[in-house]
């Protein structure tokens, strides 16, 4: 039966699912109330690191999640500055998690949100993600390890929370640094980047989700991983709860549309939906957590998670500058090639990195 701790992760999942549906209601893109990959990508574009004009906006949800996790970890006496465990390898894992997510068009969290909005393409994404996690678990069983993290100076752990504050300031004041260039800060006039909930609602939802996710250790790759490794069902209950929460809220709000075609910000190429998320699952297990978990950990002093998030930023910039990201018409040739490269590189990392 459910114990008290289980109720907390279930409650957290339900709140995140319901918040996501509400954020869509308040203006965020369809089935994208919360998406770590998409929103980090939008911020990357707003800062001018990529030039895809339709996906540029400073999403307050991201600094909200980061700062929510920071506050929760400080209050819970869990803020610990640590790092130095395979940092640059983690940068690569973050990079390829982002590439895989942008070929599918969503991180593991958005996979559940898409499912809960009736988007059946996400079934293939979820299947790919689960198989990817199983692959990652095989490497863990064979002794994969990026090494022990060491405690380090306070400053390092404050870098990511401070970057969150800077991004928030840019979101509020929206300065234009190069008037002739039209930015940065850029903001999409059309496309998904132009669709957003009001700033304070987005920020509030991000903060609340960040606090809860930090306390519950919410992690989407951890659910399947822990069940396979130790039959521990704690995190996987969070999965179910996110799905139940968003499904219920979408049904009540009239946002549920079952089918494969005409789904918001999605394509119908099943093979690449599967393989994109396979790459995300594989890389997430090796990195020790999904994009959401990396963001939360980077707020509680884990500088390796911070580097993983920066790898995701680089992955987002590369994905759009080099036309790797899918469009609603489907995946690109470049994107397919890069997913295969990513799988290869991640398998190498899984094979080669063992504790000496």
């Amino acid at each position: 039966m459910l114990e008290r701790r289980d109720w907390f992760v279930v409650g957290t999942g339900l709140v995140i699912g319901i918040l996501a549906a509400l954020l869509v209601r308040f203006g965020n893109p369809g089935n994208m109330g919360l998406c770590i990959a998409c929103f980090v990508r939008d911020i990357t574009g707003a800062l001018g690191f990529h030039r895809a004009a339709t996906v540029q906006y400073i999403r307050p949800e991201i600094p909200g999640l980061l700062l929510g996790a920071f506050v929760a970890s400080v209050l819970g006496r869990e803020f610990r500055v640590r790092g130095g465990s395979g940092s640059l390898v983690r940068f690569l894992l973050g990079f390829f998690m982002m590439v895989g997510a942008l070929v599918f068009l969503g991180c593991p969290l958005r996979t559940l949100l898409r499912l809960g909005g009736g988007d059946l393409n996400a079934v293939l994404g979820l299947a790919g993600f689960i198989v990817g996690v199983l692959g990652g678990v095989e490497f863990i069983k064979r002794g994969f390890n990026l090494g022990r993290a060491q405690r380090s100076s306070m400053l390092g752990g404050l870098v990511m929370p401070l970057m969150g504050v800077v991004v928030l300031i840019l979101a509020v004041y929206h300065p234009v640094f190069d008037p002739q260039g039209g930015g940065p800060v850029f903001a999409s006039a059309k496309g998904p980047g132009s669709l957003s909930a009001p700033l304070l609602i987005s920020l509030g939802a991000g903060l609340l989700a960040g606090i809860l996710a930090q306390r519950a250790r919410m992690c989407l790759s951890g659910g399947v991983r822990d069940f396979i490794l130790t039959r521990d069902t704690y995190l996987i209950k969070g999965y179910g709860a996110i799905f139940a929460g968003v499904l219920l809220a979408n049904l009540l709000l009239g946002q549920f549309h079952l089918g494969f075609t005409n789904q918001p910000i999605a394509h119908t190429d099943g093979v690449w939906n599967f393989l994109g998320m396979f790459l995300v699952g594989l890389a997430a297990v090796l990195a020790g957590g999904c994009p959401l978990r990396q963001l939360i950990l980077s707020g509680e002093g884990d500088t390796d998670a911070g580097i993983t998030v920066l790898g995701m930023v680089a992955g987002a910039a590369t994905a759009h500058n080099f036309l790797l990201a899918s469009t609603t018409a489907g995946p690109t040739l470049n994107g397919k090639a890069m997913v295969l490269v990513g799988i290869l590189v991640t398998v190498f990392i899984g094979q080669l990195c063992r504790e000496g």
Partner: protein
Amino acid sequence: MEMVVDARGLGCPLPVLRVKAVLEKRPEEVHVRVDSGAARENVSRLGQSMGYSVDIEVLTGGEWLIRLRRKDYLST
């Protein structure tokens, strides 16, 4: 003599796997040192599911010492 597992600095899911490998040998007592809240909770949950009582001591420097004792050993 209790066995000792040093899980400090290890990311998920390694602390749990290290402890699981030890508990499968059914020792009477295992002491685990962890330095993250997630590891503390995961190791505690694992211990309970494998028939061990869990006692957590807060150490200085943001670490915890988890004492796992085999339940059938306690009762004899």
